[in-house]
């Protein structure tokens, strides 16, 4: 049975950092699932089956949380008592907001005109922003331990990630 009091990083035997070797997370995830997945206990007693279900769900939840950059940063901050994505406090930098609103308008326009080239370049721009925020988050969290700055960057990253997903969906709709 896994230790439910362990944090997600400890569960996978990883350092408590924003940046780590993704292949190591994948390998640890699969190794843990090999140990706890309900399919391994289908012929076992009731207790083992119940424990397997709970443990396997926990491992899946932990993997999902660490795999995705936004939720990983959010989780790291939550371990330090900060709720980065609290609904009561969603303020973003005005410059950032302005830039993103302008981009949203461009997306809406390109979508109406079914301009896939324009949507493609907007997607590239969003992905560049994501990459830059990823680098910055790693510095704030792993090097400076500047939690307030990290919290702002998590919100921006979440925002831009949503923008990228929406462009992908729009492209998908035009294709279909």
């Amino acid at each position: 049975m896994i230790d439910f009091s362990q944090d997600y990083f400890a569960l996978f035997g990883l350092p408590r950092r924003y940046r780590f070797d993704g292949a190591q997370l994948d390998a640890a995830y699969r190794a843990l699932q090999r140990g706890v997945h309900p399919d391994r206990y289908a012929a076992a007693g009731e207790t083992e089956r119940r424990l397997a279900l709970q443990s396997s769900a926990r491992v899946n939840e932990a993997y999902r949380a660490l795999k995705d950059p936004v939720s990983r940063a959010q989780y790291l901050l939550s371990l330090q008592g900060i709720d980065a994505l609290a609904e009561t406090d969603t303020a973003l930098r005005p410059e950032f907001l302005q830039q993103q609103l302008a981009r949203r308008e461009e997306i809406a326009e390109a979508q109406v005109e079914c301009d896939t080239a324009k949507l493609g370049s907007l997607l590239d721009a969003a992905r560049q922003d994501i990459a830059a925020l990823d680098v910055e988050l790693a510095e704030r969290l792993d090097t400076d331990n500047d939690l307030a700055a990290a919290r702002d960057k998590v919100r921006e990253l979440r925002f831009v990630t949503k923008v990228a997903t929406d462009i992908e969906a729009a492209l998908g709709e035009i294709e279909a």
Partner: protein
Amino acid sequence: MALLQIAEPELPAPPHGRRLAVGIDLGTTNSLVATVRNGIPVVLPDAEGRPLLPSIVRYRDDGVDVGYPAQAALVADPQNTIVSVKRLMGRGLADLSDARRFPYRFIDVPGMVQIETRAGRRTPVEVSADILRTLRLRAEAALGGALAGAVVTVPAYFDDAQRQATKDSARLAGLNVLRLLNEPTAAAIAYGLDNAAEGTYAVYDLGGGTFDLSILKLSRGVFEVLATAGDTALGGDDFDHRIYCWMLETSQVGPVSPSDTRLLMLKAREAKENLTAHSTAPIVATLSTGETIQATLGVATLTAISANLVAKTLGQVRKALRDARLEPRDVKGVVMVGGATRMPQVQKAVAEFFGAPPLNNLDPDQVVALGAAIQANVLAGNRAHDEDWLLLDVIPLSLGLETMGGLSEKVIGRNATIPVSRAQEFTTFKDGQTAMAIHVVQGEREKVEDCRSLARFELRGIPPLVAGAARIRVTFQVDADGLLSVSAREQTTGVEASIAVKPSYGLADGDIARMIEDSQRHAAEDMASRALAEARIEAERVVDATRSALAADGDLLGADERTAIEAAMATVQRLAAGADRHALSAATAALNKATEGFAEKRMDRSVRHALAGRSVDSLADQ
């Protein structure tokens, strides 16, 4: 129960303690049962050597026909001969946009639709159970004993109501369901293990009535489903229907009777099947009115009239690729599953989309049942030492809750790996509020009315506090079968809120119990002896599991613990030789209870071992 024993002198007897397990593909058009024999998955044919069982059930005055005999009555007795019942599983009449296509007398009741037959009202769950029971008896006759368990396959895109209906149906048929397995995943197991494949694959599964597309990553014995998409109301039947409409149109025939519809649908299917090997198919039919239909269907015409059906499937392929964040070129191969993938225009369209010829070296009708048999064998505890593979599947549709304004708030997103569990906190909005209604829906749309209603829960016994002070934590858990369960607890006082579940389409537990009783009264089976046999199988399973646990990890136990477990085990073994099934079941439960602490210690060790193995793995990666 009298069982036909089939002796196979050339085969060695199964090793002692081997559990009889089968995989069942419960299809829209045909169903199959398969098992693993001497390490090789094989389909179990009927007494005449036919592997397929047509998924057709006919209700007569004095009994039920399943399969070929029912098929023979299709045209003569359309209202009592049920085909494509899979399309009705977990569905209300309002869900069936194509209800007019079925010649049945539907009864519009709240929840799942029912059919009025000569033998009385039947739910789709009961009709499916008649098919599953036939397969169970076929397997028991071929294997020479009662089954320890079965893996039953479902379309990956089945929602919770459709899955629950399938599981209920298997229980009703007297099967112990080891797992509900997604059809494309089953095909991937059969295909992947057969070809020692590695890399990312797509499974394109076009069955009689459902379409699934799954993207899987196969690496080092792990089958990981990355994304799944599909349509549970799109399949070979729809191609038949297009041909049927084309026939009526070209021959200028007006509305026809139910039995003529059946006749023409059969002719349409024949023509479709002919076109897999020929470029044209002649159609000749004489209607009950004396009118004659004569036409020739060519591949080009079929391609034209079914183009938007094929396009619909490719739309789902794109969606799954997008969810998996992949391009068509990232896919190493496409496995074709389901009889409808034999159509040449489908093969061609898929090949063009992926830029590679599809893989079809396993029989598309059998591959799902074979994969299910492999999984059943492993789950029943017959895992061989070299079978160290693991399957990680996903939930196909998001689960959400109705919030203010009729919107759905997603709690678990689609393509989340199962099992999965997630909690959400709620609060009261009135002073002294002691109850709260929660509506669980499944689907991707924003508005609740566009999603499928799964269940309504009433939370009661919330301590009366001022508005907003109570904190109710609702936990959603989806198990490895893809089935949802919900529990709730008030956080500040620790009061467990009771939940009254009203499944929107499923059957309540009481319904199932009644149906099991009914079916056993009607079936010529000895109920008591069957129940005893089942209790013995369960007892044997638990004793076996305990014995192998003791052999493997007995060192984890103190002398007292070991003595207690051995005593409980001895009691079970003593009672298993007798005929008191209630005492036996109680003793089995007591043994389960006695091994709880041991189970936890064993899982601890298993996890430590898995992690130790992982460090070797990650070294190898670098």
